[in-house]
């Protein structure tokens, strides 16, 4: 928080915090991630059982007939998780093929904005910036994109492209503010982005009251985005007849963006600078990089990606600007970036997982009355566990693969200090 000044003497034996903290986000292994998901689902299961009325009723006579409680709990949990699966991957009770795979397409629909915004946050993490502001960046991007989408009249193709660019620019502008403030005055980006989220919430509410956005004064919704500015459906009717998929070309944008971010981070000079500034800003400065400039560039990229996430909503799924356009994508994207360890493809798959949890959560809620809030609990438990591998290892009694290597490194530091 704010400027931390070191004590007057440098303590060499303590690892530089910035280094290790970002390294922890990026490092880690897949097994831990899988186990974390398992534990989180188990914890979620206990909650579902606890909140289930049948279970609680059976629990009143637990000591006379314990099996009743256990079987009621089993029924409640398995019903919920089966519904979750049917709502997110494959619905075997559907009558048509299209209906059976619709849940999978819904998962992807929810995943697209999560992936795009998650990429933005991951870029920030890699550069050592805690961008909590994806929510606000999505909102401002959505305002820009939707305005171009419904107010301008342009040819097909160009219209969509401009609306997408508009969304990215809107997000980038909102992202640039904390970037510039941090570069110029050292303002802590965590605080500034949090504040800008709230400003954006009021901004969208104000915008939607303006005549341009609300011609009929009908409610909290802008005019629909023109066909020419909308993402076309990804799976045409001739391919899967009778489909009502909401899946649109936004998913292609997400895949391209993932590839682009990978290239940017691993194969470009910008990514090199960005990672250097994130891993060790002092060394980056000594090597002639302008850390302030990198901060601004990073936040512009991060905001631009969040802005693109908004286009998946306003130019695709929703087709118009609403007050709730960002839903909780901006915050969920933080957990997506963490789960994906800030690596582009990691973020991509983490986004798919969380999209599936979201899509499945809705069916689970309608079929089993299990509130979708359980998804939030599961998500946060996953991220907490992934951030603390020793805990997961302790639960499953796994050996610590890092041990010899890490302690050797510490020892080396000690040696230098001694």
């Amino acid at each position, binding site marked *: *928080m*704010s*400027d*931390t*000044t*070191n*004590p007057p003497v440098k*303590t060499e034996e*303590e690892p530089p*915090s910035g280094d290790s903290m970002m390294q*922890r*986000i990026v490092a880690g292994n897949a097994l831990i991630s899988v186990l974390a998901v398992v534990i989180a689902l188990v914890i979620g299961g206990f*909650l579902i059982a606890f*909140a*289930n*009325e049948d279970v609680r009723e059976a629990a009143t006579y637990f000591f006379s007939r314990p099996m009743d409680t256990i079987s009621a709990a089993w029924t409640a949990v398995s019903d919920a998780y089966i519904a979750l699966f049917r709502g997110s991957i494959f619905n075997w009770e559907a009558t048509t093929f299209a209906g059976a795979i619709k849940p999978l397409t819904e998962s992807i629909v929810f995943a697209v904005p999560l992936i795009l915004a998650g990429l933005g946050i991951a870029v920030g993490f890699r550069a050592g910036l*805690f961008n*909590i502001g994806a929510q606000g960046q999505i909102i401002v991007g959505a305002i820009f994109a939707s305005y171009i989408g419904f107010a301008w009249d342009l040819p097909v193709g160009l219209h969509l492209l401009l609306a997408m660019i508009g969304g990215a620019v809107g997000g980038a502008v909102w992202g640039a*503010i904390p970037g510039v*403030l941090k570069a*110029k*005055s*050292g*303002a*802590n980006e*965590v*605080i*500034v982005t*949090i*504040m*800008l989220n*709230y*400003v954006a919430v*009021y*901004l969208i*509410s*104000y915008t939607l*009251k303006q005549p341009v956005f609300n011609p009929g004064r009908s409610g909290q919704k802008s005019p629909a985005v023109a066909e020419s500015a909308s993402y076309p459906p990804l799976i045409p009717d001739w391919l899967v007849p009778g489909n009502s998929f909401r899946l649109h070309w936004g998913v292609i944008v997400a895949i391209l963006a993932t590839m682009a971010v990978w290239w940017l981070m691993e194969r470009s000079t910008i990514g090199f600078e960005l990672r250097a500034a994130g891993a060790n800003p002092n060394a980056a400065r000594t090597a002639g990089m302008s850390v302030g400039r990198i901060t601004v560039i990073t936040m512009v990229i991060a905001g631009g990606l969040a802005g693109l996430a908004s286009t998946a909503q306003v130019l695709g799924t929703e087709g118009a600007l609403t007050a709730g356009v960002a839903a909780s994508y901006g*915050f969920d994207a*933080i*957990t997506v970036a*963490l789960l994906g360890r800030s690596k582009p493809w990691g973020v991509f798959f983490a986004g798919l997982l969380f999209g599936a949890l979201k899509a499945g959560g809705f069916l689970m809620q309608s079929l089993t009355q*299990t*509130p979708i*809030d*359980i998804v*939030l*609990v*599961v*998500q*946060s*438990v996953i*991220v*907490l566990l992934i*951030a*603390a591998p*020793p*805990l997961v290892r302790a639960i499953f009694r796994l050996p610590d693969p890092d041990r010899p290597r890490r302690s050797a490194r*510490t020892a080396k530091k*000690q040696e230098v200090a001694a």
Partner: protein
Amino acid sequence: MSTSTVTEPVPDTEVDEAVVGKINYRAPIVNALAALITLLVFGMGPTADAETTFQVSSGSTMFSIPNISLPSLITILVLGFVQLGAAAYALVLVRARRTVPVWLHIIVGLAFVISFLVYAGAGRSSVIPVTTLLAGALALSVPLIFGAMSGVVCERSGVINIAIEGQLLIGAFAAAAIASRFASSYAGLVAAPIAGAMVGALLAWFAVRFQVNQIIVGVVLNTLVIGLTGFLFSTVMSDDAALWNARQPLSTIKIPLLSEIPIIGPVLFQQTILVYLMYVIVIVLQFMLFRSRWGLRTRAVGEYPKAADTVGIKVNTRRVWNVIMAGAIAGLGGAFFSIGSGLAFGREMSAGQGYIALAAMILGKWNPKLAVVAALLFGFSRNLGNVLSSIGSAVPSELLLMLPYIITILAVAGFVGKVRGPAAAGTPYTKS
């Protein structure tokens, strides 16, 4: 330091201009900006003969104070020039390399706020209710103050507490549920800090034991609490609302005599026990942090943990307990949303106030008393937005509601950009 064997270096023979640091023009610039907004924006609003009326109620029958009407334009102009004068004085001071006194900022701030009120209420039949404005401001500030105190305790011991939001929310939840279950608002008052402390314990467990990045743990814990309380709200609580979520308001306690003071009496001393507890916590914390063994050790642990370790202070143990205590303070503050305001629990009812509390703590430079001032400022500007939109001011309510957040951004970028928090905040401590 002895200099017996040290002879001064031979002075430079050339005549040199004195080497001095750069002048920091921030104070005069900010003041001048406020003056210009007052003169050019607010001053353009009212017509020449418009008036603004302020209503001051005493809250008791002993006094009655008539409404005060001011000529809008002239008041704004006068206040604008006061601010301009202050800016000029600040300029003189910084050029003379003297520090700008705090009272100058307070004058500018007050003049700015009053001129805004005059502008917003100009030429309207409705009056600006000063007492309501202040009372509402305090009410909105209470959870912020609790949250900021929680942040101070936590960060002074070296752990960043983003989880204030979650602690407030779970406090509101626990207070509502337990108060309802036992049909006693005081039971809720016990439950809230315990629930908050549990979130604090989780934060401590992950941040201190596993050394997970503290900002990440905080953000995730907030999500966890939102999910958990939302889940239980939609299941257990809704299934039997009469048992688990019936309103159990804390009763208002009038302090004799003090509550009779005009304007501030009813605002400050006609409150629930929760607010009085808040006064106590702030005062005790301010004293203990700087004048007690606990405070000295806590600050050492937050500034330079290794130094604390070398004198036998158990750094991580102290951090854990302080983080748990901080959680309890925020949890207690969360009770204000439910039983403290006479409401049942509602989904996400803390509505991001925990983050504002964090901002108040930073604006208050990690100092309890200054954090209270910052929290009051936020509460005031937020309530100002509410009051003005209810009296039908021309200023869009959204823009007013944005104000606290924008002020925080400006403050973080300008006023406190260089302020230094506890040096070790955010850094886990390991000895070997």
